Structures are given as structure tokens and as C-alpha cells.
């Protein structure tokens, strides 16, 4: 550009007027950007799920931002923060949940860390070997929303399977564990899902899950028992061995059954609590309500009597000994033995006919007491210790009638009432022996000996006299006797010749007489024969034509 250029040659521009908007369209761009940005923020805010906190004992394999919370293998949340609790005893996990998972976060939802687990009953969580641990959730049934959870350490093994959960109370866990099988008629129908110790520290709460439809077999009368391992018990009735299956022998298990004597009850509601018995016998024994307890005071030693020993009524088992011990007598002067027993109505039923059972069931408490009082006071029902096995030396308590027993009363006001006793057989035997010995003691052996000696001396004297005086006389008598016999022999031989010889006249005559008699007999026989054939001959006379 120079100042003195010829500007006249510069061509003039053409002009086509255009209408223009004053505000440039370009402002749409930031507006759109802002709208999109706001849209994203709003969407994020709207899709924002709740934040929950879960406490665990350890954060094994949990990483913030990487560990998911999964339900049925779908991610429903993500761990955002892992911190230690204030007292460093556990860890607190903060997790951001998806909005759609809100319904799963209720009061009784349970969380656990899913990791590979190998138990005797199976292997689980293999997927986590590659993907890392994640947090599993089992949604609860409550409707109350909840955001603070305490994680469980062991996963519930059952999820989404129809069935019901029950709780068993036991004194010890035995050999049970999570996943221990539950048997119904030796069929595996469920498993142990968890256990915890009750606050009192004395009872275990064992949670079990029974798959449908087997859960329907559990009624309020159903009894559960531990079929862990091999159940060997040595009792008064001998050695018994029992097991449910080889698996349960190894890892323990639970079996259940409803006693056949119980009427078919309604299925038990979910989460019903049952007692877990140690073995089938204990389980099938009747429950407290049907039990009558008694206390027995024996005068003899209780050696060989154990808790659990049988109580028999007329030889049939109707109960068992619950406790054996000592007690100060009421007058505080000596110690006496005390035996607690309980008798089961149910066991009695087993030995009774149907009508009797019905009658017994219909009886009121007072009536029963009256009956037993009658048995004790009138019929002499008594308890007695008996040896059940001479090899083991174990004893049992037998209830039997002893009509001769001294009178006794039963006081129903006492709890438990005292049942009168009589001495046991063994003790009886002992007493009898003692009596015999005492009687023997009383025998005057010395005096008897003296008397005996005198007697023998007398005898001796008598015999000497017999030898000196009696014997010579006897000899003379015998010689006379021999003379008499010789003359007798002579008389007999002459008689023989007259009467018994073949040609003796007596013989001849006798023979002729016998012949005559035989002929006469023949004549009579002919006559009777003829008369039999022709009876009319008696009236008409002999027919000439007939012989």
C-alpha cells in the first residue's frame, strides 16, 4: 500500500442486500452445551441410588472403586470407600448403590464377601478367583428401608430356592457346620445355613433351611436330632450304633421325624424354633408336657445307676433316670440317696391298646393322680433297683407291685412327688443271707456235739452186749431151724408122688372129669347154634327136614 496509488482503477463492489439477525445463531452452541451438561447432571442425580454402609470384620479382597455389590450376578452397587471403624475392630464399607436396587436395601438384607470357598459339601465362589471378591446380598423380606448393615462373615448357602427356614436350639454345635445336610428318612432335604451362640452363652441357635416340598413335613411336633458321625451309646439296654449316611458320618448332619403317635399336625410356620436333640432316642422321647417326674429315696447303694438308665413298669420301659445324687435327710442327721426319674406317658401308650390310650388321654390331671395314688397305696406300687446287666453291673429302676410292702403314701403336693421304694433284689438277697447266717450263729453246735458223743457211746455199749449175749443164742436157734426145714422137705417130696406124678390116681381122675365137661360144652354149643337159626323150635319142636 502506497499513498499515491491510483485508486480509481479499484473496482467497485457489488451489493446484494441481505437480511441478518442481530443476535448471532452461534449462541445456540453454548446453550446446547449447557443443556446437555445440565441434562447429564440431572440424569446422574436422578439415577443416583442410595449410599449404604456395611461393616465387616475384614476387608478381604475389597477395593474401593473396584469391588461391586452383586445380586444374582448383576452389579447393583460399587464400593466407594473402605475405612476402619473408630475402635479399629472392624472395617466400614461405603457403597454407592444403583437406584433400581433400592428395594433390596431393607432392614433384614444380608451382605457378605463372596470369595472362593471349599467346604466338604461343595465348592463355591469359583468365579471370584478371576474377578476378585465381591459383595453378595440376600434381600430381606422387610419393607423398611435401611442403609446401615452389619455384614455376615459366611454366606447364606441358600438363595432363591423355595423352602423354609427353621431354627434349632442345641447345647452344643456338635460336628455340625454350615452346609451340613439335613435328612428326612435318609433323604437329603436341606442344610444348615448358619449358627450363632445365644446371648446367654449356653445355647446354640442353628439355622436350617429345608427345600420345598420337604419343609411341609415339619409340624410343630416334629423332632430334630443330630445324626452327626456315628452315634454309639452304651446304656442299660446294651450297645447301639446309628448313622444316617456316610456323608453325615464325615461331616455331621441333622435328621428329623414326626413321632408316629402324634396326630398329623399343621405344618410349622417359617422360622419356628425346635430343640435339637443329641440322638434319635432322645428326640423321639416325649416332650416336657407329657412327662411326670418323681423322686425316689433308696436305702441301698446306687452303684451302677446312671442318669439315663431305664425306668420300667412291669418290665416295660416307661421312663428314665434323670439324676442320681445324694441329699441331706430332712432331720439333717444323715445323707441319703436321691434318684430323680421321669416317666413318659407316650412310652406307656406304646404298650397299651388304643382304647386304653384314648381313656388315658382323656383323663384329667387329678384323675391320673388319683389312679396312681390308688396303685401306690392299695396295690403296693413301689420302685426298686434292679441289675439290668450282670456284666456291666448297670442298674435300672423297676416299678412293680409289692402287695406285702409296708404301707406308704404319695404326696402330690410335693414337686416332684416322692414315690415309695422297696429294697432291691440284690439287697434283699443280702439280707436273707444275713438272716441265715444269724440263725446259724444261734445253732448250739457244741451242745449238739456233746449229745452226739453220748449217743455214740451208748450205741457202742449196746453193740458189745449184743455180741456177747445175743449171738450164741441166735446160733442155736438157727441150727434148730435147719432141722425143721429138712423134715419139711421130706413131707413135700412124698406129696409130690401122690398128687403130681403122671400116673398118680388124682391126675387120672382129673383128666377124665375134664373130658366129660368138654363134651357137655359141645352139646350146649350145638343147641344154641340151632336155636339161633330156628328160634321157633322152642315152641314148635325140631323141624325134621332141617339138620
Amino acid at each position, binding site marked *: 500500500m502506497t499513498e499515491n496509488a491510483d485508486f480509481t482503477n*479499484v473496482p467497485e*463492489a*457489488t*451489493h446484494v*442486500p441481505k437480511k441478518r439477525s442481530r443476535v*448471532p445463531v*452461534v449462541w445456540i452452541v*453454548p446453550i446446547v*452445551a449447557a443443556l446437555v*451438561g445440565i441434562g447429564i447432571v440431572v440424569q446422574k442425580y436422578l439415577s443416583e441410588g442410595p449410599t449404604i454402609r456395611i461393616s465387616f470384620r475384614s476387608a478381604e479382597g475389597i477395593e474401593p472403586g473396584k469391588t461391586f455389590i452383586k445380586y444374582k450376578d448383576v452389579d447393583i452397587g460399587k464400593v466407594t470407600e473402605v475405612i476402619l471403624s473408630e475402635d479399629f475392630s472392624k472395617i466400614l464399607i461405603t457403597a454407592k448403590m444403583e437406584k433400581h436396587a433400592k428395594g433390596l436395601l431393607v432392614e433384614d438384607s444380608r451382605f457378605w464377601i463372596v470369595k472362593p470357598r471349599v467346604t466338604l459339601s461343595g465348592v463355591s465362589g469359583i468365579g471370584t478367583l478371576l474377578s476378585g471378591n465381591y459383595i453378595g446380598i440376600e434381600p430381606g423380606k422387610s419393607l423398611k428401608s435401611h442403609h446401615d448393615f452389619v455384614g455376615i462373615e459366611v454366606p447364606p448357602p441358600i438363595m432363591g430356592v423355595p423352602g423354609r427356614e427353621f431354627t434349632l436350639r442345641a447345647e452344643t454345635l456338635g460336628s455340625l457346620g454350615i452346609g451340613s445336610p439335613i435328612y428326612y428318612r435318609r433323604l437329603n432335604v436341606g442344610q444348615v445355613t448358619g449358627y450363632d451362640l445365644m446371648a446367654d452363652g449356653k445355647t446354640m441357635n442353628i439355622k436350617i433351611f429345608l427345600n420345598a416340598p420337604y419343609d411341609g413335613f415339619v409340624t410343630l411336633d416334629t423332632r430334630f436330632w443330630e445324626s452327626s458321625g456315628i452315634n454309639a451309646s452304651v446304656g442299660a439296654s446294651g450297645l447301639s450304633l446309628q448313622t444316617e449316611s456316610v456323608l453325615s458320618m464325615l461331616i455331621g448332619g441333622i435328621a428329623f421325624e414326626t413321632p408316629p403317635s402324634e396326630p398329623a399336625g399343621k405344618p410349622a410356620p417359617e422360622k419356628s424354633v425346635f430343640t435339637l436333640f443329641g440322638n434319635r432316642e432322645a428326640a423321639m422321647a416325649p416332650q416336657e408336657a407329657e412327662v411326670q417326674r418323681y423322686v425316689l429315696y433308696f436305702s441301698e447303694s446306687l452303684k451302677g445307676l446312671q442318669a439315663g438308665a431305664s425306668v420300667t413298669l412291669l418290665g416295660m420301659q416307661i421312663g428314665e433316670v434323670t439324676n442320681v445324687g445324694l441329699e441331706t435327710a430332712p432331720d439333717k442327721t444323715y445323707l441319703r440317696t436321691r434318684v430323680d426319674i421321669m416317666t413318659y406317658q407316650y412310652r406307656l401308650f406304646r404298650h397299651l391298646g388304643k382304647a386304653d390310650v384314648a381313656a388315658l388321654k382323656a383323663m384329667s390331671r387329678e384323675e391320673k393322680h388319683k389312679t396312681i395314688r390308688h396303685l401306690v397305696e392299695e396295690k403296693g406300687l413301689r420302685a426298686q433297683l434292679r441289675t439290668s446287666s450282670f456284666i456291666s453291673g448297670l442298674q435300672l429302676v423297676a416299678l412293680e407291685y409289692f402287695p406285702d410292702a409296708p404301707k406308704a403314701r404319695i404326696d402330690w403336693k410335693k414337686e416332684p412327688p416322692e414315690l415309695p421304694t422297696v429294697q432291691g433284689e440284690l439287697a434283699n438277697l443280702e439280707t436273707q443271707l444275713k438272716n441265715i447266717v444269724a440263725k446259724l450263729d444261734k445253732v448250739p453246735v457244741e451242745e449238739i456235739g456233746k449229745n452226739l458223743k453220748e449217743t455214740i457211746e451208748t450205741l457202742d455199749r449196746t453193740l458189745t452186749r449184743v455180741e456177747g449175749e445175743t449171738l450164741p443164742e441166735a446160733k442155736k436157734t438157727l441150727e434148730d431151724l435147719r432141722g425143721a426145714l429138712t423134715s419139711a422137705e421130706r413131707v413135700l417130696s412124698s406129696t409130690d408122688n401122690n398128687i403130681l406124678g403122671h400116673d398118680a390116681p388124682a391126675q387120672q381122675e382129673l383128666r377124665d372129669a375134664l373130658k366129660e365137661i368138654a363134651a357137655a360144652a359141645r352139646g350146649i354149643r350145638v343147641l344154641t347154634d340151632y336155636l339161633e337159626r330156628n328160634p321157633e323150635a322152642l315152641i314148635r319142636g325140631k323141624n325134621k327136614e332141617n339138620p
Partner: protein
Amino acid sequence: MTAVARTGMREGFVSCEACGLLSRPVSPEEPGECPRCGAELEFRRRDAIQRTWALVIAATICYLPANILPVMRTTSLTGEEPDTILSGVVILYETGTWYLALILLIASVMIPLAKLASLAYLLVTVQRGSVRNNRERTRLYRVLEIIGRWSMVDVFVATFVVALIQLKPLMSVAPEPGVLFFSAVVILTIIAAESFDPRLIWDSSQGKQETDD
């Protein structure tokens, strides 16, 4: 100083932005079309300041989600992991390749930010009629035009990675909304730089000269 202050517009001429031909406008309001190439003539780019402002604001808005939202999601056997630009920088740095981290940091975080700041600075100074550092500001503008496109490296990388790493089920990479916002930032700043008229930098100094006369 007067020679410096004189501009084509002041003298009543208009230069064609397409072919560079200097021509006399039809009227000061409507300069008309270029007689040589037919392009529309303008004394100054129309609504340059407003337009640039709009685009700068739009880019700034997009810059936030571009950095907050993940740009891609890596799914592997060990799980899923979304990555934002900054987390990518951190990962690269932590894995020991600090130089790659630096490149990513400069190209994807600092350059877009610098562009936005520079454009805002240019716009503010032009609007306030500042006369200082005219040459430096013009140079800044030229640099902006050149380096702006390098920010697209990140977008290209993301695109390639997404296209190439599809080894399902072992590993796969999927794009996330962040990359869209990031591309928007880059494109909007390029357009914004384009919409700005560097001639405006000198207009003020001319005004200043005039008042001085």
C-alpha cells in the same frame, strides 16, 4: 506511529478473506462480494467477539464433563474399570511412563485449558480496547490456531483403542460419554479460534491513535 495506526477499514477499503484482494466496499454497512472470487466481503468478521465468546463458553461448559466423566471403560476378566482423562494420566505416571503421562497431561488437559484461557484473554482485551502487547497477542493467536488441533490426539487414541481392543471376553474397551465432551471441547475451541478476528487487536490501537491526533 501514524503508519502503524492506519488500517484498511479506516481508509475505506476491505480485503477479501478468501483471496486476499483489496477492494472498495459498496457501502460502509454492506461491503458486498469480492469482485475476483465472489466471496462475501467483511471489514471485520461478523459478530466475531460474540461468536467467539459463545463458542468459548460452550467449550468451557463441555470441559467439565469431559474431565469428570470417564472417556472409556476397560472390561477385562478382573472386572470393569472406567477411566477419565486424569485417571489415565495418573495410571501412566504410576506405571512409570511419566513422559507419556506428561504428553497426555499437556495435550489433553493443559492445551484445551490454555486455549480457553487465551481466547478469553484475547476477547477481554479486545473488548476493553487494550493497546498493549498487540504483537504478542497476535502471536498468541497464531500459536492457538496451530496447537489447537493437537488436542485431538486424545480423541484419536480413544477411537483407535476402542476399535482395536475388542478381545471379548478377555478384554474390551468401550467409549464413554466423556470422550464426546472432550471432542466437543477441542472442536469448539478450534472453531472459536477461527471465529476470532485478529484484526480486532489492532482496531483499538487505531482508535487510540485517532483520539491522539
